[in-house]
């Protein structure tokens, strides 16, 4: 479980997080929704001790992050928003191997772990490619593989759907579904439509948690979203106005609509 207790953080004198308190349960798919500059990425960087709170504390599986960040980094894997920030090795293999190598894996075991992670993101066959030769979407998928290769208990994605094409988005949705219940997954986004697959969502704005609730409670509240400069996804708008539960996928939406229409 992840627990944030009254977390404050500021860059120089600019306060970015203003007393964030949250609890994220094991196996939950948790969304962090907020407009640009809400503090989402800063909050995410606190989850494995990359940034340290000026006040308050972050606890992951009972470990206070500030006291033992190295241990927490084995548990929490973060996929950064821009893959160019995440991929620092000349070759795909080296980058994906970086995390598991630091976990102590060597030889065949390391190679298998890398291959497995690349397979999960549909990038098998790319391990000997140079990172600079990849397209942005491919880099994003490899960036996800770099974290999957560490097999963390908690997966954190910062704006994961940004700049992904249809195939990339589909792959990511399937990946989230594959790990649902097995791992804790945290997704941050300023686009509400991508958070329909979450179990719970926290709305963040101005460095504060505005509201935590189910997708129906957060995404179904058009006024709340508009008040915080967020788009209301058309599908969500339609289902909320019909008084129906928000579907997690198009397939689910089709099934629900069929039921209503027939």
């Amino acid at each position, binding site marked *: 479980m992840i627990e944030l207790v009254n977390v404050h953080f500021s860059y120089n004198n600019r306060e970015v997080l203003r007393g964030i308190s949250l609890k994220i349960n094991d196996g939950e798919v948790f969304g962090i929704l907020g407009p640009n500059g809400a503090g989402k990425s800063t909050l995410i960087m606190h989850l494995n001790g990359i940034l340290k709170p000026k006040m308050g504390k972050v606890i992951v599986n009972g470990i206070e992050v500030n006291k033992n960040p190295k241990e927490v*980094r084995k548990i929490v894997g973060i996929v950064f928003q821009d893959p160019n920030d995440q991929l620092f090795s000349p070759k795909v293999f080296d980058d994906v191997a970086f995390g598991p190598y630091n976990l102590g894996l060597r030889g065949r075991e390391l190679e298998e772990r890398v291959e497995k992670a690349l397979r999960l993101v549909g990038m098998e066959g790319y391990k000997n490619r140079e990172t600079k030769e990849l397209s942005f979407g491919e880099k994003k998928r490899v960036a996800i593989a770099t974290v999957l290769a560490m097999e963390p208990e908690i997966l954190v994605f910062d704006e994961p759907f940004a700049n992904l094409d249809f195939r990339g988005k589909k792959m990511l949705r399937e990946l989230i579904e594959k790990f649902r219940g097995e791992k804790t997954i945290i997704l941050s986004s300023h686009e509400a439509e991508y958070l329909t697959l979450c179990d719970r969502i926290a709305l963040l704005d101005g460095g504060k948690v505005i509201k935590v609730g189910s997708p129906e409670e957060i995404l179904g509240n058009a006024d709340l979203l508009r008040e915080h400069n967020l788009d209301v996804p058309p599908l969500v708008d339609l289902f909320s106005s019909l008084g129906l539960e928000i579907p997690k996928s198009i397939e689910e939406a089709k099934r629900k609509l069929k039921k209503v229409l027939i």
Partner: protein
Amino acid sequence: MSDLYLIFIFIYALLIVTRTSLVELFYFLPVLMALILLLKPKRALFKHLGFLLGFEGLLFILALFTPGKPVVTTPLGVITYEGIQRFSLLLGKAFLSSSAVVVVSNSLGFPYILAEMETLRFPRILVLTLAFTYRYLELFEEETLRMKRALDSRAFNIGKIEYYKKLGMLIGEIFARAYMRSVRIHWAMLSRGFGEFPKVVEEKRGEPIVLTLIALGVALL
């Protein structure tokens, strides 16, 4: 056998920089040619070597003005016979030694050089720094191009002085952005348990011919 290119480059460069005359340097030219023929690098190599020659020529240009017997007078000063000799020697040493690295990395790929460095137990921090430099030079170039295009697309109706002022600011901005990126990269590394750098797993080509090149270099000594 697999880690001999780097050793070859090292011995070859060491032999070159310790030469004291142009005639001695001349003997190394066939070694470089042999290396090019053996490794069959991409065509772009010759363009890279041309740039390298030009860049190194500029670096040593002041050597042309070494005091001595005048050859030609230029607005910058008098080019002397001794100056030309000194310039040629410096340029020859710099070009011959650095071009070997360019030939090997161009044909085998820079990751190959990194893999060899790791096998030869070069300090990890050095290998890591070179790996980053290689990876991020391309990103740096991309970012520069993007910013230059953005400048050019809006830099109409401005004078040359104003344009170069903006270009200067752009270069400053590129460095600031590079710094910001380096911070984020460090975060990414920390997130994945940074402490050690993974071994570069690379299929290595053991070529006995490298031994011949080393022997040839030693013989030239």
